[in-house]
């Protein structure tokens, strides 16, 4: 694309360095707005999926009627055993979550619902190092690990505190870090045996209803083909997701459910629109300052297509310069915001790719609009 004998677009931009700097600044600011808005929008929902990201599994089995982690719908443990017999499945582990019955008594003798997460603690099911450390203590009856970022409503989170959970005595034997989300103020981890004792006192078939089924795949097998196979083999009361898919599904649920989702989405749209306008401004003013030169080029017999190419090349160069400066600026802004609040705006590869695409689209659209002015350049007006 840049194989012209005379790199006109490059020379146009470089001719006036001060102007170029200003133009890049203009594009940069538009891109920063988008970065910040998209960053806000996408990271806003992150805390709801911390548990999912910590699961040590390739595939996750969920009841078909469980629309989100916050809902209780469970599926039969039998499904998980059926899955274990499918080719390529290395191991299956049930994970249990209870929120409604999990009432935690705080220092004021008030009970507060806390999310209880339970599984076979002898297995590496969740990537939380403290579980390995407190394995022996967790094997004892009525013991829990508490999330040290749980809100203050639960009272003391000190190790060795004894309190009541679901009307039984429990002891805190250690802590881990997860953090509250939109619907949970805190978390505790316990063994599946304790879970059965605490929450399923009267159940005949204890631990039968599974909240999440964790499926580990033999490394020799392809995860997606095993996933297809499982979905085909099992009755359709369960869904099988890869971990990334399930994480995305949970975020999508909150994007629709959270009343603030559309606010950030519209912010991004506004940023994009402003970006197009600014970019158009810059390119238009660039075309105008070289209008005589464009007309001359036309007089030499070059077609409008050539002019379009030049303007689009300028647009692309601007978008790339602007993107990289904005990338750096956003990281600085993100670190300032992180310093003054608890908000972390991640500027990761995923978000950066989205923004790079948006930036290029923005500049190209603006370039096409601006090039139309160059088409009107009339050699006859020149002299």
């Amino acid at each position, binding site marked *: 694309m840049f194989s012209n004998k005379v790199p006109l677009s490059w020379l146009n931009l470089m001719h006036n360095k001060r102007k170029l700097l200003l133009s890049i600044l*203009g594009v940069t600011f538009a891109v920063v707005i988008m970065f910040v808005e998209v960053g806000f929008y996408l990271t806003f929902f992150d805390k709801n999926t911390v548990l999912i990201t910590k699961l040590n599994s390739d595939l996750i089995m969920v009841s078909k009627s469980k629309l989100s982690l916050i809902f209780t719908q469970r599926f039969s443990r039998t499904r998980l055993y059926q899955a274990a017999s499918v080719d390529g499945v290395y191991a299956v582990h049930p994970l249990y979550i209870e929120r409604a019955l999990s009432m935690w008594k705080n220092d*004021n003798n*008030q009970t507060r619902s806390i999310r209880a997460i339970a599984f076979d603690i002898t297995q590496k099911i969740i990537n939380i190092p403290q579980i390995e450390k407190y394995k022996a203590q967790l094997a004892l009856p009525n013991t829990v690990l508490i999330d040290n970022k749980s809100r203050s409503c639960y009272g003391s989170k000190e190790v060795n505190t004894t309190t009541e959970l679901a009307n039984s005595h429990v002891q805190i034997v250690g802590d881990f870090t997860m953090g509250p989300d939109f619907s949970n103020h805190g978390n505790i981890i316990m063994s599946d045996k304790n879970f059965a004792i605490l929450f399923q006192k009267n159940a005949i078939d204890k631990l039968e209803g599974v909240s999440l089924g964790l499926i580990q795949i033999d490394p020799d097998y392809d995860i997606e083909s095993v996933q297809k196979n499982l979905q085909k083999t099992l009755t359709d009361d369960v869904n099988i997701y890869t971990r990334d898919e399930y994480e995305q599904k949970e975020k999508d649920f909150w994007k629709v459910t959270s009343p603030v989702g559309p606010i950030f989405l*519209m912010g991004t749209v506004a940023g994009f629109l402003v970006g197009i*306008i600014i970019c158009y401004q810059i390119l238009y003013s660039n075309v105008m300052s070289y209008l005589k030169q464009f007309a001359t080029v036309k007089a030499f017999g070059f077609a409008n297509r050539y002019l379009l190419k030049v303007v689009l090349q300028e647009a692309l160069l601007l978008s790339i310069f602007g993107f990289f400066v904005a990338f750096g600026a956003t990281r600085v802004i993100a670190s300032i915001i992180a310093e003054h609040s608890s908000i972390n705006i991640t500027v990761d590869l995923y978000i950066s790719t989205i923004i790079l695409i948006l930036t290029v689209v923005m500049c190209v659209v603006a370039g096409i609009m601006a090039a139309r002015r160059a088409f009107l350049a009339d050699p006859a007006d020149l002299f």
Partner: protein
Amino acid sequence: MLHPLAVMNIVHNKSRSLSSIVGISFVIMIIFYQMGAYSKVISASMQVYNELEFDIIVLSNDYFHMGQSFTFPRQRLYQISDISGVETAVPFYIALSPWRNSLNGIIRPILVMAMPINNQGSQVFSSNEIRESLPLIIQPNTLLFDRRSRKFYGPQTPGTTAEIAGNEFKILGNYTMGGAFISTGTTIVSDQNFQRIFFRSLDNVSFGLIRLKNSAHADVVAEKMRQILEEDVLVLTRTELEQREKSYWATTSSVGLLLGSGVIVVFLVGIVILSQVLATQVMNHITEYATLKAFGYSSLHLANIVLQQAFAFVIISYVIGFGLAVGFYKLTSMLAGVPIGMTTYRAIAVALMTIFMGTTASITSLRKVLLADPADVF
């Protein structure tokens, strides 16, 4: 009024002026939008409370904000009912519960509100529409449904059914409220139905709504309550609640912080873009300005023209930006189900910001004009 030269400069190259105006208009629009969203998040925090009749509210001492309010023992309300000045002390219950759309089976969380209802209904809500239909929902498994709930909850017409936490409920009436940023929908049930849905004892109260006799002073009675009551509750007058709720949404919640910093970012960006656009406009005519200087026009005279030109741009752009913002508010209100509208206060605030930006930008370009040397022109 305007100097003819300023007008001529703007009109001379219509398409270039137009593109500058559109650029500035969009910047003004995005400032309007960010401010609107930010102030809506703060003002919406009182949306549900504004529908409730109370002078003093009793809350759990763990109370965070309306969406995370926790409960306290009902006993506390009995303890304060004989304090002089207290007219009534009514328990109010809220919970977020899964609501199943009867048409497609999709489940979404909804804000459920409940209070004791007798044959006369209840005086808890200020809306007449709610008061009149409250006696209807004494029956088991019946509810009133908020018209402002998002469409994904399903049909709203009285007579249709929906499921709350696995129980089938019949919609008997509607009201208009909106769950603001707490929930995408709301519904009202009787305390008896509430107890049955959640297996939750009515002894755990979310809010205690206290109404005072006309002669009583809220601050005095609230202070008396604080002395009597245990540490497990929070006693707030209406004004105190409003301050607390707003400051939570503005400074503690991530939504408020995100949108607040959005306003700052957009404002800074706005200044830079505006300065650049205006500077380009002025610089386009720099040779003419230098020529005028050579003719003997004073710098003051030229500065006047530049300022007039800048402000003409800014004012036209403000009007267009204002229109764009109103359209954008409408679109967001439709998508978010939270009405965002233009307020006089915001219109003035953005106007002042625009004038400030215009001035900053003019000063930069002014310097160039004042330094323009006729000798350099040709």
